[in-house]
């Protein structure tokens, strides 16, 4: 069997990235869009860790960034859920298409 190299991981990450983009653009639920964002963040994480692994000994920048990435995702999600609840209270829905009062 062939050897698993860096590009394998990168392509998996690309799949996740594109699925994330697709999700962002087709979901009407605000939380659905956030799930798309999570996919993109995960693809970033794969990228970073994979680069680290193949970059030579003692390199851990990518892993550190991946840690912060997870922190950021958590923070963002927490705030996002807060905002979604707030929106739900005001609009009775989290359908982003319903949030179109501000326009023009």
């Amino acid at each position, binding site marked *: 069997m062939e050897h698993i190299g860096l590009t394998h991981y*990168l392509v998996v990450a690309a799949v996740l*990235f594109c699925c*994330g983009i697709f999700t*962002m653009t087709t979901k009407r639920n*605000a939380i659905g*869009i*956030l799930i*798309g*964002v999570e996919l*993109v*963040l995960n*693809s*970033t994480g794969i*990228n*970073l860790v994979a*680069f680290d692994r193949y*970059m030579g000994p003692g*390199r851990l*920048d*990518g892993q*550190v*960034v991946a840690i*912060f*990435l997870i922190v*950021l995702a958590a*923070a*963002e999600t927490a*705030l*996002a859920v*807060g*905002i*979604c609840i*707030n*929106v739900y*209270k*005001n*609009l009775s829905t989290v359908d*982003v298409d319903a*949030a*179109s*009062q*501000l*326009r*023009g």
Partner: protein
Amino acid sequence: MTMWLAQSNAWAGIDVTRHLFLFSPMLTLVCTMLAVVACPIIVGRSAKTIGAVVVMGIIASFILAVRVAGEVAGGGISGLSTQPASGMLLVDNLSIAFQLILLIFMGGVTYLWWMGSSDSEENAPEFFILLLGSAVGMGLMVSTSNLLMIALAIETASLPSYAMVGFDKRDRRGAEASLKYLIFGAISAAIMLYGISLLYGLSGSLSVAIVAQHCIQSLASGHNLVITLVALMCLLSGIAFKISAFPFHFWCPDAFEGAKIEVTAWLSVASKSAALILLARLAMVFCAGVSAPEAIGMLSPLAWGIGIMAAITCTLGNFAAYKQTSAKRLLAYSSIAHAGYMLMAIAVFVHPHSDHGQEGMSALLTYIAIYMFMNLGAFGVVAMVVWDTGSDNLASFTGLLRRAPLLAVPMIICLMSLVGLPPFAGFIGKWWILVALGRLNDSLGWFLVITAVVNTLISLYYYMRIVVQMSLRDDGQPALSFPLGGMALVNICAIALFAMFGFAQPLKTTSEQFTRNIFDTTMAKTVVVDAAPAQPIESVQR
């Protein structure tokens, strides 16, 4: 393990105390934030108390920033890290200049809040934690040249902003605005992080200086060209989102319209200018990354990219502002347009033929300083109109010249300054950007000059609409009641615009002083940058 244990005291040899002093303005803000967290437990949730604490914090931070500014005048350092070369946190003329502007503006916004919301606001601690948090984020955005820190700082600036936009929970529009802002921000941030990961893979480092060298090499050799550009595009998207540059500007009018007026004022200036300075710093590093003459031409696509983005941004902002009826939304579009003008200044120093990097930089700083006063004044007046009439529709401005001349006249001055008419400071800001562009003396420069001038003409129209509404239309509404302090604030802004016009040369000299030596710190060279040994700043061991 042993490898790490061997140098277990990694901080040995680093004068941490000194570093802490140099980074104290932002640290003070963090401390203020902690104080605000503690306040409800100790002295209660009174809005005025919280406000007072915050004001004290801002003042303390400002004083420290002034002192630090004196310290770093000769050159900056990269500090608070055992690897200074990574450029994790920088303090130099540029960052301190922006922090000074930021603190002044924050004082203004706090003052505005004090007048408008301190009586009714029940959630003052939360508001100020968010405000201070975003201020810290913005302050850090301009003082780093590390991709990780850039991402973190942008998030630190953005996340509180989302919450601030939707801070008034009873406001349907605020909720909607914050949702849009959040989603757009989250998407941009995710894409930016993806770009950062690609850049890391391409260069093997997170330090912008090294990344820039690799990018320039790729551009020069045509090797990895497209992937480099894609990665840069992704990175730029995150920054462009903060600048609200085309095509990442969509959130801006919605978020600005939905937010409370103090928040709108805050975001329109602080968050945009922080991102602009961050972009400027990146641009400078890219220029500095070019050490071989052959590679210089490779900057051209970057310069054109930013230039075209700038041109579209300001044209679009101006045109879209045409038929707006909400003053906040109009000013939001105006701020998009102004971001476009400022982006032009950045295009100056990415430009290959440019040895005017400093000129563009000082023009940008000056513009931001002026822009701060213009927007503070304009939003201040809008705020007071909103407080009294409850609406920011242009109709609320009818007859303002009669109903409240002391608001209308500063408003007119601020608007004229936003247009860029002499004798107001806005003219100066625009003029220097144009001069810097013109001195590139090539097609990009002239293209941008023409765009800027045409846009100025276009913008005259919609600013005038407000002026007309204030001065010529009158439906006999009673006089406006407004807080005296607010009147003073906007008038001070108006006078400042006059004064800055009058003292244009000192202004220029000052901003030039603040852009000296930033190049080397930005490259994370970490040591004293000023060649003059007269005021040595301690070098940091690598």
